[in-house]
């Protein structure tokens, strides 16, 4: 708010001096923040605002009509002579301008939203790389573009984070986690990271929720072509079409990329090239949205074909330990329908279908002792119905979700003998929030409580059933004296069911089923926007979580690893985020600091030296400092990441530690408009200081490498 006012004055002074052009800023009427990608046009010209909502408007006749258009805002037209330095656009409400939501809809919990712009799409090869740079989630990265990338929140394992794509859950049924190297940033427009269960979500997970959404963050129709190349022999071409009509929008996205991926790394003092890390991928997606006054229907589908080497660990005298590769075909479809039943009553329906055909080829029989391949075919159909009702200060969500999965998995020790597994998963949830506004000294107090009940049944070697009951409760206070301050306290009890692999191999080798993992904890957040009228946003969270029956893969005999419920862990820590902008959004700085204690709290036996020691691969400290400089058509992004030392033995012995490391990446983007084409060239350098580091022991990370991306938009 203050930024727009101050900047308006500044613009006025500039305009009187410059005379030839009028520099304006287009802002959100409610938040007073600048709006990117607003199309500003007349019958003579057409321009779009930059990332900060700025635009140099050429001088024209005072009586000319100038139009301001953005898909998320009501269209506005003004005569040139009436245009001030700041133009405010009103956000469109959910359905139409005539129907407004009267209840207060508060956003419980702490959520980070990353709206992915073209610059970010071009800078990063995978969503995993983007999340690593832009958020405080820790990415367990096995190296290179095709290396597996799993998220870890607060020291928890990747299986604890629910990943949604357009509201459909996409965690792999077999492993329980999601590999963020599989999705290109080109297919995604927004990422939301929800650490506490909120009214928006029906999922209860200790590791939070990562929501990936494809949608329409562009204001106008466009056709986009691009190509990317990097110094590790990665080549990619892509195109994207977006067409926006009154009530109907669609988008098609295609990417073809391949690489030998022989990236350079250091090992035992010698510079080597990564072996068997090649990949070849094709990705095609389509997105359709249809809106009426009462209904929003969204359909999304994608097909991907991926062949990638499994590079294996790097150890002394064995730097190409694997010649195995994966061949996977994946098809995914999701339909969302958001229907306004009455003024205050929405129904959201979702149907999704996920097909995965995985083929693993292991010519040296290193993974499978007596065969060279393994195939696995997954069919998963899911659907849910959610109802949201709000009245006065109440909001209630009620929902039911059903998932049917069929997995045809070749036995690990036999050829052509398939295990046919069917799993049904039912979920019921209810949550509600209540706001109180007439409280002394407080602008608003919100209470939230949510309950979830899951019941599943699967036939492994024997029938396995389970049920989980989880709940979460939160209180949020907005003090009257500091309206932009929020205080949140959250408490939860959650369960995680073992994944298919965990349950199957436990029943196969340990002859018993695993228990659910149990989590219980609380966190407290201070969230302060625009501190004292500045552009500084501050968020700090303290969390304290305990887990029981954690599932750990432990070697038993003949190097065989089997999963077991094992021990209690306590996770405590602090997460701090500071965002600020300087010189009128010329420079934006994000600082993310995480301190994580993830300690084993059970002495499992006499002489257990893992008691009170940090979990393997969980760093105690991480700092990300990201800076972006936006000047006219140039954007410079610098990502600095520091990760503290980690241990890979449970007793944290000094010999078995990975050193702390600092990595700096930077990208420089330049865009210009020529006729009806917008051109964007980005040049990125990753690992500028050539840091030699491991995220996971024996999986080296790339040394310094470069990439260049060119994008052409047809406006």
């Amino acid at each position: 708010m203050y930024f727009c006012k101050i900047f308006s004055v500044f613009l006025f002074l500039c305009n009187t001096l410059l005379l030839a052009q009028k520099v304006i800023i287009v802002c959100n009427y409610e938040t007073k923040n600048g709006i990117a990608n607003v199309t500003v046009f007349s019958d003579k010209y057409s321009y779009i605002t930059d990332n900060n909502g700025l635009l140099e408007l050429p001088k024209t006749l005072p009586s000319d009509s100038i139009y301001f258009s953005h898909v998320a805002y009501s269209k506005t037209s003004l005569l040139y002579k009436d245009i001030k330095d700041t133009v405010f656009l009103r956000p469109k409400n959910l359905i139409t301008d005539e129907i407004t939501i009267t209840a207060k809809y508060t956003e419980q919990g702490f959520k980070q939203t990353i709206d992915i712009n073209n610059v970010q799409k071009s800078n990063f090869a995978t969503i995993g790389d983007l999340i690593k740079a832009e958020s405080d989630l820790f990415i367990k990265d096995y190296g290179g573009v095709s290396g597996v990338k799993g998220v870890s929140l607060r020291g928890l394992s990747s299986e604890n984070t629910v990943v949604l794509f357009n509201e459909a859950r996409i965690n792999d049924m077999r492993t329980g986690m999601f590999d963020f190297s599989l999705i290109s940033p080109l297919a995604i427009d927004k990422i939301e990271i929800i650490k506490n269960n909120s009214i928006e979500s029906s999922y209860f997970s200790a590791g939070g929720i990562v929501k990936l959404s494809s949608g329409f963050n562009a204001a106008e129709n466009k056709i986009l072509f691009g190509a990317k190349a990097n110094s590790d022999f990665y080549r990619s071409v892509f195109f994207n079409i977006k067409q926006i009509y009154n009530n109907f929008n669609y988008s098609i996205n295609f990417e073809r990329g391949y690489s030998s991926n022989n990236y350079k790394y250091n090992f035992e003092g010698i510079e080597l090239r990564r072996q068997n890390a090649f990949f070849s991928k094709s990705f095609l997606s389509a997105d359709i949205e249809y809106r009426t006054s009462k209904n929003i229907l969204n359909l999304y589908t994608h097909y991907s074909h991926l062949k990638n080497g499994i590079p294996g660990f790097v150890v002394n005298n064995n730097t190409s330990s694997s010649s195995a590769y994966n061949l996977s075909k994946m098809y995914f479809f999701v339909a969302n329908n958001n229907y306004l039943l009455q003024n205050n009553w929405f129904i959201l329906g979702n149907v999704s279908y996920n097909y995965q055909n995985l083929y693993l080829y292991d010519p040296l029989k290193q993974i499978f002792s007596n065969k060279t391949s393994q195939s696995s075919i997954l069919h998963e159909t899911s659907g849910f119905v959610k109802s949201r009702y709000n009245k006065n200060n109440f909001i209630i969500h009620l929902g039911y979700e059903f998932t049917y999965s069929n997995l045809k998995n070749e036995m690990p020790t036999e050829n052509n003998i398939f295990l046919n597994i069917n799993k049904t998963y039912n979920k019921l949830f209810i949550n509600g929030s209540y706001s109180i506004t007439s409280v002394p000294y407080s602008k608003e107090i919100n209470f939230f409580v949510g309950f979830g009940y899951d019941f599943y049944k699967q036939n492994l070697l024997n029938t396995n059933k389970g049920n989980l009951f989880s709940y979460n409760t939160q209180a949020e206070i907005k003090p009257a004296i500091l309206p932009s301050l929020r205080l949140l306290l959250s408490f939860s009890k959650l369960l995680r069911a073992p994944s298919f692999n965990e349950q199957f191999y436990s029943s196969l080798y340990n002859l018993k089923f695993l228990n659910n993992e149990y989590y219980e904890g609380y966190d407290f957040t201070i969230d302060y926007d625009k501190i004292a009228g500045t552009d500084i946003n501050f968020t700090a969270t303290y969390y304290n979580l305990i887990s029981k029956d954690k599932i750990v893969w432990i070697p038993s005999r003949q190097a065989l690893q089997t999963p077991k419920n094992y021990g209690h862990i306590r996770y405590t820590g602090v997460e701090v985020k500071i965002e600020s902008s300087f010189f009128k959004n010329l420079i934006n700085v994000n600082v993310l600091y995480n301190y994580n204690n993830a300690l084993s709290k059970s002495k499992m036996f006499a002489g257990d030296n893992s008691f009170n020691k940090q979990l393997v691969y969980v760093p105690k400290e991480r700092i990300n400092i990201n800076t972006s400089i936006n000047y006219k058509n140039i954007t410079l992004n610098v990502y600095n990441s520091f990760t503290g030392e980690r241990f890979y033995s449970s007793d944290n012995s000094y010999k078995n530690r990975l050193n702390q490391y600092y990595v700096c990446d930077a990208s420089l983007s330049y865009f210009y408009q020529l006729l009806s084409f917008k051109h964007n060239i980005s040049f990125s350098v990753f690992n500028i200081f050539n840091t030699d580091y491991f995220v996971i022991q024996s999986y080296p990370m790339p040394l310094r490498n470069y990439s260049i991306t060119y994008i052409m938009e047809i406006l």
Partner: protein
Amino acid sequence: MKRHFYLTLIIFASLFFACSKDDQVTPPKDNPLTSKYQGVYIVNEGLYGQNNASLSFINITDNVVFNNIYEDANNSNSLGDTGNEMVIFGNKGYIAVDNSNKIEIINMDTFKSLGFIDLGGAGSPRDVVIVDSTLGYVTSLYNDKLVKFNPTTKQILKDIRVGGKPEAAVYANGKIYVTNSGFGNENTVSVVDIITDSEIAKLKVGLNPRFAHTADDGTVYVVCSGQYDATGRGGIYKIVNLTVTDSVIVNNNPGESCLTSNTQMIVANSFGLYKVNLSTMSIDSTPFVNAMDINPIFGVIYSLGFDKKNNNLYCGNPKDFQQNGEIVVLNLSGTEIKRYNVGINPGTIYVKQ
């Protein structure tokens, strides 16, 4: 002078005629020069794929353990990934390092590396036999081979095809006996003649033969672990030359074992340590040491060694397989004497008398 000549001739002749076919290749025996290396060596596997195998040494006389002796002597360089077996011959130690596809050779006086024998991709060395200074053999797990090499020049001399997933190798009677585990799917022992370097017999034993020992009288005992199912039916098989002469069934996946004499073996299964009478091929009905007393969390006895001089057993305790382990020292009555902290997953105990 003539007397001395004839005496020499008689002595020489007696030596000549005393040689039999078996003595044409000298069996491995202790070299007096190596007596200073006496003690207990532990090859710690480390964590699979994490490049942190290590070597520990217990000085029995002084009751002191030394850990990371390879790294300390070699500029903090890692021994490699998944150390599996060790033998000492002369003043050199030969360590099979599985995932590093090498046999690391160290100077036993300084523990400094003398180089390594590279078995190449998927070489996966498991068990080493040194016959003499020019002749050694190692089982190559993923290649289904027994690899012949020269311990002095470090040259690979020959690959000899054996059965699937060969684990243990022992020398007896001029032959190498190789247990073909098949990862639980095979039940044979390949017998390789070291003159012809070829497999001359394949003897049928129980499922999953993983360990083997040679008694002083040349009898070979093979321990079969069986399938990892509810019964875990395995067994101990007695081989004399080219014949399986006797056996005894041992349930619950027997594995680690050691000879305490020509007539007694100690074998570990998931319940504990048992005494086996090798004369009658019978096993005690109850363990004299419970596995949970060694490893209270999983009941796993990960390795076994026997000190003949002091009649003590050395048992490897991997704890939870994710942290540094222990060696538990017991007497033959099963009484615990001491515990030593060693590296992660102490998989092999080599007692140098």
